[in-house]
């Protein structure tokens, strides 16, 4: 291995601290909740969208709203802000559930959303100490209901007696009753949060009663319960999304629980529209404008993270334009440009650092593109023509290589654009 030089030492410690502080503010993979709590998020970026979501969920019990958007567009942040609004109102108990934290989403099936909701409800019940208003007898019933929810969610293992006249085996002596031939077997019933997840309508009916008992208790303190499901947008295939959501959301509507959920972008187009009709409202979290003359919003996102000292105006504008208005890309570019400046020994972020970061991001988008996709992007760039209903184009939208600014304005991601116009880009 080649010998590496020692990392930079004093007097660069101050420089290092300065860069570290900058990088801390630009972490594209930091949990969205942390970014909100640290005051790094501009809360009114999408025209009070989170407040609209929260208000409807609060005012219309049982309503179901979806938030669809591209990868890195800020869906989780908006859902968390909606949760914050609901808390601030004080009348509603919002339950935020990142379903990817609960289970293996790829094996998710009908019943899993209800299972996760049930577990969170039981947890909230304990935390809020709603038990205070219950008699001992009622609490025993509630405990039974909690057990049923846990079994539904996590599964159960029990011993069952199996008659077996062919191979007689007397039961233990201390048991009462006449000896019968047979033996015990251990039966495990899988829970809804462990794969595999059989889709059984009967199971969903079974969970209705214990859930209702907890909801009644919760409604003694709050007007209503709102459940917020994050992570469902990962189910890019509509069939899978609908298989997971259909029965569970119907059951939640019956329970008068309002639902906010992230949804895949594909729900806005083609066959997705039919599924969208099952919801009271589907919001599209659109890509923010990134034309040089409309950069105020994106620049304000950077300013919220206090970068003026490290990042000059020209560099910031270039980052905004190259991000295409995709929030995660904006943060990624700002971070990577800072990283390049630090590694190159500069005290400030220069345009060449920004360009290097843009090139890296663009290359990331370029990798893996096939000839069909390159052709579609090339056509989009040359003619502006783009049919989001075609499978190739839908994939380009979902993967963020093509961006939608309005129903008639689609464009190639600006970091990718210069690379697809090069002849060598024709290879995957």
């Amino acid at each position: 291995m080649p010998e590496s030089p020692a990392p930079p030492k004093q007097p660069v410690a101050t420089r290092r601290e300065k860069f570290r502080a900058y990088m801390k503010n630009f972490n594209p993979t930091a949990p969205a909740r942390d970014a909100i709590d640290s005051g790094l998020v501009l809360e009114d970026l999408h025209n009070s969208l989170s407040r609209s979501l929260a208000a409807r969920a609060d005012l219309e019990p049982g309503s179901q709203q979806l938030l669809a958007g591209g990868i890195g567009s800020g869906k989780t942040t908006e859902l968390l802000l909606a949760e914050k609004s609901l808390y601030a109102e004080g009348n509603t108990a919002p339950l935020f559930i990142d379903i990817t934290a609960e289970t293996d989403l790829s094996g998710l099936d009908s019943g899993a959303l209800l299972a996760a909701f049930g577990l969170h409800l039981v947890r909230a019940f304990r935390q809020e100490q709603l038990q205070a208003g219950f008699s001992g007898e009622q609490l025993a019933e509630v405990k039974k209901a909690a057990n049923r929810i846990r079994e539904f969610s996590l599964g159960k293992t029990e011993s069952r007696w199996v008659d077996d006249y062919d191979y007689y085996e007397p039961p233990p002596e201390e048991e009462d009753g006449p000896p019968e031939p047979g033996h015990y077997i251990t039966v495990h019933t899988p829970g809804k949060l462990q794969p595999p997840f059989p889709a059984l309508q009967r199971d969903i009916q079974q969970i209705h009663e214990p859930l209702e008992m907890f909801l009644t208790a919760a409604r003694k303190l709050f007007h209503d319960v709102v459940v917020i499901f994050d992570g469902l947008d990962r189910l890019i295939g509509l069939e899978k999304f609908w298989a997971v959501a259909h029965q569970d959301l119907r059951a939640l509507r019956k329970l008068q629980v309002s639902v906010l959920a992230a949804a895949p972008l594909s729900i806005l187009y083609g066959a997705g529209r039919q599924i969208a009709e099952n919801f009271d409202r589907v919001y599209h979290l659109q890509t923010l404008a990134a034309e040089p003359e409309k950069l105020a919003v994106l620049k304000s996102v950077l300013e919220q993270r206090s970068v003026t000292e490290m990042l000059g105006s020209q560099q910031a504008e270039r980052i905004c334009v190259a991000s295409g208005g995709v929030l995660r890309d904006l943060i990624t570019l700002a971070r990577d440009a800072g990283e390049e400046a630090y590694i190159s020994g500069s005290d400030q972020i220069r345009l060449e650092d920004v360009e290097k970061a843009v090139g890296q991001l663009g290359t990331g988008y370029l990798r893996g593109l096939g000839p069909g996709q390159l052709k579609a992007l090339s056509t989009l760039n040359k003619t502006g023509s783009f049919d989001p209903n075609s499978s190739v184009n839908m994939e380009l939208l979902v993967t963020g290589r093509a961006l939608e600014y309005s129903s008639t304005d689609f464009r190639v991601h600006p970091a990718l654009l210069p690379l697809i116009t090069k002849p060598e880009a024709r290879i995957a």
Partner: protein
Amino acid sequence: MPEFIARPAYEIALRLEMRDGCAWSVVLKPEDISDTALRDFEHELSLHLETPVRILDVTGLSFVDLRQQLHTPPGDVVVLVGLDDWSRDSWTSLDINRDGMAREGPLIFWLSPSGVLGLCRHAPNIRSFVGGSIFPLGPEKGVMSEEERQRRLEQFAGHFQLRNEQVIQMAEAGTLPPEPEFVEWLVLLGRGDLV
């Protein structure tokens, strides 16, 4: 286009040191790199960061097990290996569960060109987290010796009956088949920009 990194572990260590945790990146390594190279990378990275680096082989792990291992402990540096031969379904499944892999410490995907293609084609949510942090190991100055590189290039030339210049010309003309072997060939020629 990103340049090859002459001192991969050192540069990646510098970047990780600056980032605020939860940092995801990819090291793009040649297709048939030796285990020793991985150990060297781990050792060097560990020296620069002054913290242990854990290699986690995903071969045969269920997602539940993978998640559990990523979080035990959650804050160390993990290099994920064993993803190069993954199918579309495997990548899609991992992609759906991306947030389940989120952890405090840095996560490095140790991938060959075919592994990177799999990630970029079938795992858009993971790719979004990785962003532009795909760092190719330099064949000349990196973990593969010049002798190893030449031997590998000769193997390709003999097998496909093509010269290096022809492969570059075909890539530039867009006529090079997208098989992983050709991708590796380009990388070994220092033309990773054509991938």
